[in-house]
């Protein structure tokens, strides 16, 4: 009865609830990390634009964080947040900050100087200049960073299994322990699918948010 084939539809049907729960946790951890990461990165990017002095220290610190391997980062956060999904989310937020802050700064700094000048000449200033001129022009670059961050966040969530909250990573680990191939393959494929879905969802958001570029892309 137990053949341990790689593909086993019966497993997917009989363990439906378990698989759905893992997908749910995976999505929850990813979305929570991305939302918090985006808001934080936005705040950091704005602060850096105000205070150019802090640009190098901020980017340097985030690069150092990004260099730390995920298993180590989750373990270092363990004493603070315990065996919880918060440990995983905080780690993922820290990783996404590196990609997002850089992307936001590149996008905002890439606004052509003459566009900026023209807007100021037309009476734009402060918040209105930022929201109606600078931010829209930076959106394509920001979305590119968001997509990279989302895809790697989905993949990295699996390592959260070290603290017992890895979403689909939990299934992969369980399959490893019981030497059960269909479980490992199903969870791995679902993980890649989730990453692709995240990428497509953000691409959709981007098309909605930048209607003037639709004819270009």
């Amino acid at each position, binding site marked *: 009865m137990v053949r341990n084939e790689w593909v086993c539809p019966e497993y997917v049907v009989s363990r439906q609830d378990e698989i759905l729960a893992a997908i749910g946790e995976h999505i929850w951890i990813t979305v929570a990390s991305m939302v918090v990461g985006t808001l934080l990165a936005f705040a950091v990017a704005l602060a850096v634009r105000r205070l150019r002095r802090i640009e190098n220290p901020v980017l340097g610190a985030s690069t150092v964080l990004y260099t730390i391997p995920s298993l180590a980062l989750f373990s270092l956060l363990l004493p603070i947040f315990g065996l919880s999904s918060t440990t995983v989310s905080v780690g993922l937020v820290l990783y996404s900050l590196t990609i997002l802050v850089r992307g936001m700064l590149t996008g905002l700094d890439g606004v052509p100087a003459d566009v900026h000048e023209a807007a100021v000449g037309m009476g734009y200033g402060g918040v209105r200049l930022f929201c109606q001129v600078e931010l829209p022009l930076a959106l394509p670059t920001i979305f590119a960073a968001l997509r990279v961050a989302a895809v790697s966040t989905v993949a990295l969530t*699996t390592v959260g299994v070290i603290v017992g909250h890895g979403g689909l990573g939990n299934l992969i680990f369980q*399959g490893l322990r019981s030497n059960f191939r269909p479980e490992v393959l199903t969870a791995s494929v679902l993980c890649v699918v989730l990453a692709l879905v995240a990428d497509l969802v953000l691409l959709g958001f981007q098309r909605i948010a930048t209607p003037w570029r639709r004819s270009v892309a």
Partner: protein
Amino acid sequence: MDVLVDAFAWLTDPENWQGPDGAATRLIEHLQLTVTSVVIACVIAIPIALWLGHIGKGGTLAINVSNIGRAVPTFAVLVLLFLTPLGLSVWSTIIALVLFAIPPILTNTYVGMREVDRDVVDAARGMGMGGSQLMRKVELPLAVPLLMNGVRLAAVQVVATATIAALVAGGGLGRIITNGFGRQDLPQIVAGAILVAALALVVEALMEWLQRRLDPMRRARRAPVRRPPDVIEAVTGS
């Protein structure tokens, strides 16, 4: 903060460094895995990327291989390879590490080759350089900074992935962390994490240094071209 003190005590206890299970053995295992995998990945990826970049084809493949690599969880690949007939052997870990080291090297080397100034390439051809000479003497030296950038990214990636290999079966420093979890020994977990983080940062710094050292154009880049004073005056109009 007590945890940090205990972790520090763990790290300074010589007993934790000795023996087949000690931190020294784990560190050597980690370095062996990393060096072997990065070297194999270089041997595979660099020639392909140089050739693709030289003939200017396969750009979509060279760029997309990095995007695909990002979407596939390293942990999943490690476990999948472990459940193949390769199983327990070191090679299943090394294959996984090589798979994740290839994309950054391939993409960066390819982009480096393509970003060589077309005027320079035309000038070299005009001077009578043939295909292989052009690649060896003009394109490759100019592509070295990005090539080395790819190798650096790959090395850091491999150090991180080799850590995760401990979750599956492999050795390396990750083993200190997973053993710590097995024994519910928080100081050991944190000590292992500190070691892994330190190794990653050291590798990153070393590779960055190597990247600068190996750039054949580093002198040209550092020293700005000196022009005779009269030319500068003519340009600035003073």
